[in-house]
């Protein structure tokens, strides 16, 4: 009789105290990324911001109960030079096994690391929404084995969409100014040279003359030879594709050498508001593609500005990178909405819900294609969107696509 009584007491204790405490355990989101690089650091902050906002409203509704979210960040360093992919993968596995993360956001910088990480996420059944690495091989891998890789999603621009945006911008410039001569300068890294190669093909197919296509090693800080070639070849547009810190020098030299061509493309250091001070105003007139809106507020699409302002208030600083940050913020909301829609933490049901996402995010309307890639287009009310902005008198002004443009392109004073 005593034994039965004790058993009943143990059961009562378990039901009253242990089960509820399990139920109130927060859902842990892992943020494995390169925290020492600006996109990773700011992506981490954006994901934390989204988590705090959701928790402030009581958390995520899982069936009949509300669950809080918490984040566990880990610097996997895969974006830093010389760090092997294996180290990044070990970091992800550590987060999964030690911190028992339910899902992961932000993720890898290098595409080869992302592709390898997809197998780990698949092995442990961890939903993940990446916002940095851009290789289209991601979608191909998912489409190659949809069941195995159903846990992986991408919430940022990929390189195919990047080419579409840049070619759209070039078409816009051609329409505005009747330009058809271009000089391409890229950083000598795979994503940039591949984008440059695809753009060269596009230019040739669309009646442009490509005066030159030159590659610069990472760390280069003198671009005078290409600028002189662009000038002597009478290029009307210079298309730069760089993400190295020293690439801002290209724009400074373009101004100081008064090269009579529009500078329009992607130079990572030009993306943030601090670039004006960093380059002492010597970037006026340069046109830069922002990979996702939200890194720059868009008047025609208020959610982007709402996120931008919330980030600024929370972290007392504006976003300085042009990629991956608004996507990281949205990724947390995508996960939260999917959990609520599924009404359970069952991973398979949640990933099915993520695949069916339709949400107005900071990057635009969020919907995924069959390869789990966020769909991009020119209207943020319909799809996610990138933007091209021009530095005009110290301000970043959206000039493309037309649906979000807030001003016309201004030619620098020395260009006729």
């Amino acid at each position: 009789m005593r034994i039965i009584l004790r058993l009943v007491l143990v059961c009562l204790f378990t039901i009253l105290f242990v089960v509820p405490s399990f139920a109130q355990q927060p859902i842990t989101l892992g943020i494995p990324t390169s925290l020492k690089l600006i996109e990773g650091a700011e992506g981490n902050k954006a994901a934390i911001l989204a988590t705090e906002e959701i928790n402030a409203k009581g958390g995520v509704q899982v069936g009949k109960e509300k669950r809080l979210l918490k984040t566990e960040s880990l610097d996997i360093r895969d974006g830093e030079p010389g760090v092997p992919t294996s180290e990044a993968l070990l970091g992800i596995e550590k987060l999964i096994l030690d911190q028992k993360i339910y899902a992961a956001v932000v993720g890898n910088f290098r595409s080869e690391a992302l592709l390898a990480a997809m197998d780990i996420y698949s092995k442990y059944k961890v939903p993940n929404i990446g916002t940095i690495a851009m290789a289209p091989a991601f979608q191909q891998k998912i489409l190659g084995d949809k069941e195995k890789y159903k846990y992986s999603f991408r919430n940022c621009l990929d390189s195919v969409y990047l080419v579409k945006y840049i070619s759209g911008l070039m078409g816009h410039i051609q329409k505005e100014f009747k330009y058809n001569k271009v000089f391409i300068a890229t950083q000598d890294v795979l994503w940039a040279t591949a984008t440059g190669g695809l753009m060269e093909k596009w230019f040739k197919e669309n009646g442009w003359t490509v005066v030159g296509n030159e590659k610069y090693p990472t760390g280069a800080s003198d671009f005078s030879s290409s600028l002189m070639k662009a000038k002597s070849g009478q290029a009307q547009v210079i298309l730069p594709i760089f993400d190295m810190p020293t690439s801002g020098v290209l724009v400074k030299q373009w101004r100081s050498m008064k090269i009579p061509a529009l500078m329009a493309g992607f130079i990572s250091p030009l993306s943030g508001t601090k670039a004006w001070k960093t380059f002492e105003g010597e970037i006026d007139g340069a046109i830069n593609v922002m990979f996702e809106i939200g890194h720059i507020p868009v008047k025609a699409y208020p959610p982007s500005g709402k996120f931008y302002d919330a980030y600024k208030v929370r972290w007392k600083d504006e976003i300085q990178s042009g990629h991956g940050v608004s996507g990281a913020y949205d990724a947390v909301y995508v996960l939260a909405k999917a959990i609520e829609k599924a009404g359970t933490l069952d991973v398979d049901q949640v990933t099915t819900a993520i695949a069916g996402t339709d949400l107005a995010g900071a990057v635009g309307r969020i919907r995924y294609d069959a390869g789990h890639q966020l769909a991009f287009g020119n209207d943020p009310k319909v799809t996610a969107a990138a933007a091209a902005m021009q530095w005009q008198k110290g301000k970043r002004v959206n000039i493309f696509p037309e649906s979000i443009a807030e001003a016309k392109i201004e030619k620098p004073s020395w260009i006729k």
Partner: protein
Amino acid sequence: MLIYGLINSAVLALMALGFNLTFGISGVANFSYGAIYVVAGFLTWTLINQVGLPYFPSALITIVAVGIAGVYMYRLILKRIRGLVISEVIATFGIGLVLLELLRYLGFMGFEYSLPMFIKGSVEIGDTYVDIQRLVIIGAGILLITALYLFTHHTKLGLAFRGIAQEEHTSLAVGINPDRIASFSMGMGSALGAFAAIVILPLGTITVDGGYDVLINALSVCIVGGLGSTFGVIIASFIIGYAQTMTATYLSPHWIMIVSLCAILIILAVKPSGILGHQKELEERV
């Protein structure tokens, strides 16, 4: 091409002079030189943007502070292993790695780190516009070389530097303390690295990884010119500087980075002591 080749040569000479001075006097190949250059850039940036000091006092404080740090790096670490070449290389390379990774740890990442230009604007030379900061670099290079010449030929400390460089054991006989002079050379080499950073970095941005590029550039110029030879460094700067500019103009900027490495290979195959170096001349003759 002529103008930008000249500027590129001046940049290389400025980068290499500090490394060369330390090696020429103390025999220590300071592999932390690139890190010292980057630390100087970030220190100046911090003094200007965080402390709020004007540019020139910040630059001066940086040069002095980095110089003193160089002296103590020698006294605390390198003095114990001086003459053990491999140990010196490992120690200085290790110090460099620690400094660079420390900067990374402290959050010096991103694109906002840049020093202001001395004079903004550009001038037209022939049919080419050149920004004035690049002309400042040429001026700074000439100034530094002249100052170094006057220092080593007309000051007591400079003569002691040369004495140690020429014959360390004999210089002991005339009361020159080799360790003291070697520590000064380390400090002065570091200060020259800081000076180069302050003059060159306004052209671009300060990055942690830039330290490795500076070390490679300084090393290649010194090896080609002859380790320890100031005039060798100047000649090598012109050779490599113009070779890089011509490569960028006539081939592609893609190949710039291998120019200095090719120059090292060629000089090691033809004249291992470098153009004006004396370090291995006896072995070469034998």
